[in-house]
């Protein structure tokens, strides 16, 4: 260790009710390095950042800033200590000028009044340092998210005392914007700043960082020199499983229903800043899997198909009819169903009963003015409670009272009640117990057997391999390949994700 450690966290633990978010995590940031913090979703990256910046208070452990123990209790306090953070979403005020966004809260004064001249001049100097040429007198909203991100960094750098935390700053930037950001990061590093860089883009980590600390399930896995760690090793550290050629547990050999007619086709469907154009097609009765790390564009793709986000290029064809635009109501009318990733936020309506939750989508499809008689509603509810084996005393229970697995089944029932032709399941088994997981996976296969097409998204490769008959692999918002049949094995997919290449499988695509 020739370099001085500026920020050190050791033995950090943090629990939330029912969850141990961090246990005994250590982290050390050197002067003049860019240090990546890696881990899958839920690994504890953001919790660690929040502990470091005073958003959460730690339960155990200590944080040392240049050797001195600190315990920031709010972001302001952390800022005052010289730890400044730039978040994924720009936390600035779009209505104020660029200069003011850099200086608000600490305006330069002249005779008690705010000195705009000095402020503008100083801002220009700061942005010059980041090689950013913008008119500081313009409102921030005048500029793109990338520029706004840079302004946020300029502010953070000016406040900071040697430590800068960048929490997924690149997720809304495109390639050229990312490269200018990296240029700035390297420059700041040379000036001696220690930078913590949180991201889930593997390529970016290898492009810009010096060291990598990996977290998994709230635990510290290790800190590695970037140059000495291969991507394959990194991914296996993140996922927590070694793989090799002998670990070739293929998914139950499923025949690929090539005969079935194609239900949905996406041609170069994409959205700037969200997803590179992607081609895919789903046949009737087919289970298509989307694999990739979190943030690889899986959910984004599902949202484009269902019309929650508007695609800005490409075409979408359903049952041979090319659709000019897509929005959820239309998607439902066309026979699509979507169970979102986070059922608490976007799926269940906790205050309503199971029955009410189930008939929601059906009602939406029928239009608000054709009332479904209560007797009919009860019939439907009972039908699905039996079919999906939802454990509840009655359909009139509040859905909040059910376990996660049963809630997930209710959401499935909601869409099944609309008799969909294609169900998009985003993380259908996240956060539910093993037994229910197996049950839901079996249900998915049963449903497909009845002729429903299913698009399943899951971070658990095992689940995807088990359920899907064909898998599309995404990485950094690009489709990097497709696997089916023999090559549809966990280790193959992992390797594809790590290497970012079409190692196996048929190729119809991008890059390589």
């Amino acid at each position, binding site marked *: 260790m020739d370099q001085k450690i500026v920020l050190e966290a050791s033995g950090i633990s943090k629990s939330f009710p029912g969850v141990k978010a961090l246990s005994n995590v250590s982290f050390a940031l050197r002067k003049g390095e860019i240090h990546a913090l890696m881990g899958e979703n839920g690994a504890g990256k953001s919790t660690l950042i929040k502990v470091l910046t005073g958003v959460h208070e730690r339960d155990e452990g200590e944080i040392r800033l240049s050797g001195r123990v600190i315990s920031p209790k709010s972001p302001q306090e952390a800022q005052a200590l010289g730890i400044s953070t730039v978040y994924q979403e720009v936390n600035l005020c779009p209505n104020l000028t660029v200069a003011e966004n850099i200086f*608000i809260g600490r*305006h330069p004064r002249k005779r008690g009044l*705010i000195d705009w001249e000095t402020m503008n001049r100083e801002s220009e100097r700061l942005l010059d340092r980041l090689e950013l040429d913008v008119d500081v007198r313009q409102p921030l909203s005048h500029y793109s998210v990338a520029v706004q991100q840079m302004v946020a960094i300029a502010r953070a750098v000016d406040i900071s005392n040697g430590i800068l935390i960048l929490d997924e700053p690149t997720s809304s930037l*495109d*390639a050229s914007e990312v490269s200018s950001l990296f240029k700035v990061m390297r420059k700041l590093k040379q000036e001696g700043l220690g930078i913590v860089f949180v991201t889930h883009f593997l390529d970016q980590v290898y492009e810009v960082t010096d060291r990598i600390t990996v977290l998994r399930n709230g635990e510290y896995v290790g800190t590695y020199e970037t140059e000495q760690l291969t991507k394959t090793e990194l991914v296996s550290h993140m996922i927590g499983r070694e793989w090799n050629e002998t670990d070739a547990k293929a998914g139950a050999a499923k025949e690929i229903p090539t005969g079935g007619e194609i239900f949905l086709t996406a041609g170069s469907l994409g959205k700037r800043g969200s997803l590179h154009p992607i081609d895919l097609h789903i046949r009737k009765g087919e289970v298509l899997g989307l694999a990739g790390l979190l943030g690889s564009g899986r959910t984004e793709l599902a949202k484009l198909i269902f019309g929650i986000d508007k695609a800005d290029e490409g075409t979408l064809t359903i049952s041979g009819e090319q659709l000019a635009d897509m929005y959820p109501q239309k998607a439902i009318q066309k026979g699509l169903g979507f169970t979102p990733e986070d059922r608490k936020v976007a799926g269940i309506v906790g205050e309503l009963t199971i029955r009410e939750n189930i008939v929601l989508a059906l009602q939406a499809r029928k239009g608000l003015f054709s009332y479904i008689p209560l007797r009919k509603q009860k019939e439907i509810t009972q039908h699905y409670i039996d079919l999906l084996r939802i454990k509840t005393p009655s359909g009139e229970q509040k859905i909040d009272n059910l376990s996660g697995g049963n809630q997930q089944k209710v959401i499935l029932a909601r869409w099944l009640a609309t008799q969909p032709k294609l169900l998009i399941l985003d993380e259908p088994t996240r956060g539910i117990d093993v037994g229910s997981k197996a049950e839901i996976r079996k249900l998915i296969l049963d449903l497909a057997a009845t002729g429903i097409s299913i698009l399943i998204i899951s971070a658990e490769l095992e689940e995807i391999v088990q359920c899907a008959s064909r898998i599309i692999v995404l990485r950094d918002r690009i489709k*990097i390949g497709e696997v089916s049949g023999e090559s549809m094995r966990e280790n193959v997919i992992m390797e594809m994700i790590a290497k970012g290449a079409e190692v196996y499988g048929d190729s119809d695509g991008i890059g390589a």
Partner: protein
Amino acid sequence: MRSLTSKISHNNIIVLATLLLLLVLYGSGAALYTGFFSLQVFLNLFIDNAYLIIVATGMAFVIIKGGIDLSVASVVALISMVSAALFRQGASAVIVILASLAIGTLFGFGQGYLIQRFRLHPWIVTLAGMFLARGISFMISTESIVIDNPTFVMLSQHKIYVWEDGFINVSVIIAAIVVVLAILAARYSAFGRAVYAIGGNEKSALLMGLPVAKTTILVYTLSGLFSAVGGIVFTLYMLSGYSLHLMGMEMDAIAACVIGGILLTGGFGYLIGPTLGVLCTGIIQTIIMFQGTLSSWWTKITIGFLLFLFMAFQRLIVMRKEKSTIPISKNQPKFENKVVNL
């Protein structure tokens, strides 16, 4: 070129539009009616609307912060009522003024505290405040009370000559001071800038370390204080206290802000705006007065129409702005240059 277009863009284009409207209205009034283009008619605009200018300026801070204050008109009525009642008890002018200021400030602080502390919606809290203040004035008396305090009468009738025969009064001076102070505070004080920041994005303001809670409470306190000053000025103007004074004037204040280019969504606008807005409505009123045959409701109809126009105009500007963001490097390809590293 760039500096010229940047000087007349964004929020000041609305203020410029209001200014233009003001000139057109005044010009047409002057062209249509003899006697309209006289100094005193112009100065009367200020004399008649001094209270509204003050109240609307206070309102402007609230709206820029992203809130609303519906209680202002009731507070003005309450102040007029309390003043009249105190004078009837034999209180001196100084005591009445101090009491008025204290009541307005406390009232505003109370509302601000409730809104901030309990995360209540300002519409609800200030609506309650509106009923409360109006109710208290009725409790004091349901009758109109005439004020004959010599100091107030003297202040009310005192003419300050500005140019030959043209005169203004004390109220106009007070309004001018209030507006100038408000403009300075909005542009050159940390409080003013925090108000804009919170109106722009409250969460960001908090993360940037701004005193959001304090500023929120202060904004409503300030609105209460401005209402009190407006109340004193209005009492001087009417020389009476009456619980039915100025029913619905809070909407006039909001309308003045909107016409003056202050966006109801918060974060935008200049503090001179409300004054311009008030002058616009004042001129419309004067024109209708000069016209002679139109009912005074035509003022409301015209203002209603203007409001629609301005809201649409503001929205158009905001929508255009959302479209025209400048990327980090111009003329870049959309996606093609992202290479897949192998």
